């Protein structure tokens, strides 16, 4: 990671974890951009946020 400095244990480790992190399935990727699915999620997310705004503080 560093340009010409000594190795960095934590930084090396986290970037290794990032490289090895599980990738989303094709199913998940399709869901993220499906207009039908995302239209439904849009409604659900709006409702969730609206509920948060109505909390008693």
């Amino acid at each position: 990671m560093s340009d010409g400095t000594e190795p960095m244990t934590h930084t090396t480790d986290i970037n290794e974890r990032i490289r090895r992190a599980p990738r989303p399935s094709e199913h998940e990727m399709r869901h993220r951009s499906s207009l039908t699915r995302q239209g439904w999620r849009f409604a659900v997310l709006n409702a969730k946020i609206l509920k948060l705004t109505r909390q008693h503080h």
Partner: protein
Amino acid sequence: MVRIVILGAGVAGHTAAQHLRRRLDDDHQIVVVSPNSKWNWIPSNIWVGVGKMSKDDVTFPLAPVYRRMGVDFRQARAVALHPEGTGDDVSPAVDIEYTDPKRLGHTERIRYDFLVNATGPKLRFEATPGLGPDANSLSVCTADHATQTSAELERVIDRLRAGEPQTLVIGMGHGSCTCEGAAFEYVFNVDHILRERGVRSMARLIYLTNEHELGDFGVGGMVFGEGTEQRTSEAWMTSLFGERDIEVIDRAHVTEVRPGVVLYDTVDGTSGTLGFDFAMLLPPFGGVGLQAFDRVGNDISDQLFAPSGFLKVDADYAIKPYEQWSATDWPQTYQSPAFSNVFGAGIAFAPPHAISKPYQTPSGAPVAPAPPRTGMPSGIQGRTVAETIIDRIRDPHAPAHTASMANMGAACIASVGAGMRHGAAATITMSPIVPDVDRFPGTGRDPKQTFGEIGLAGHWLKRLLHTMFIYKAKARPGWWLIPE
């Protein structure tokens, strides 16, 4: 007649002014003092920073809106408070210095009955040598900064198209920064636009952050869901960074930015240098440097302000170890303990402590994300303070309204790429913002209301919020129906 002076016209100050004006009779005067002539929907600055929006899309002039609302607007900065009055006049006052071109540098003393300090932050680029758009790095903190950053990004894209590999460093320019969410959004939006332009493979993208773990966001991270469905924000972010091939340096404090080189130290004691062709690094925030004086002119700033320059309110500021921090330390009314007619809201109030566990480098530099107080919490605080003032005008002994961040939830729609068909955002909700392990043992947050997902719907939501909040800030018909 009561005069209420509001310092600042950002989310907190502007929201307070709108609610006060709507609910108070016209014989009460509301004065807004802001050094900026325009209102800025700051969450959309990241889209200005990648060329997806222009400055005019995210700003509008304040003066015509305030004229229509019946609010007295002074384009000026507050320089001194006199909460006990001055000389023979016991009426509290604030000294302002005009910033509009017609009266530039002129000063005036405004008397007030109530004062709302909602100045927002001073962008402390000077905290790190070489940091900032006047030195060696870029910013998206203001619409002008974002416009400059977008132009520089275009030059990077031109060089990538010419076959010249580029290194882009995006993140936090100091160990005590806040707004990690904005840096996260910007690095993902840059990734998105580089892919759109077909040049991503030539670019090395590095996220440099003071967070101890990815997904901390200055709120100590989050745990989503329950039981076997439980997932941490750290695991989620690790996966998202992996998907996009973005490298990470976390637990870092930037010590200096030289032309083309960032120098940083990390909590584990390593020092690094990172060459870059493009660096967008956010600054730490501080108070705007207001001073306060008693009636005979003695400096009483330490009675009103914390060492950071933020206004002390009804929080527990006792210094204590992280293990003893409590949700009850956080303010509820945002009223100054020194002067009951002075309130703070938004970034301008001094938080009692961080939410994330603080660390430091072996040389003692802080690596401690500051707690976020922007957006939804800022708006709620502005409205809460306005409601207290309205009640106190009618009955001086009326109890204050409350809105503790330890009871309040928040939604963060973090864009990861703009586009009505191919955009996406990470929608994150949490409740409460400040974890309360007494109410929610384990994670400190309500698992039913702490949630994260990524998808196109998030982008639609963020785009909708952009339109709705600008409509609301312009005080268009029915604006009060739009929640904070």
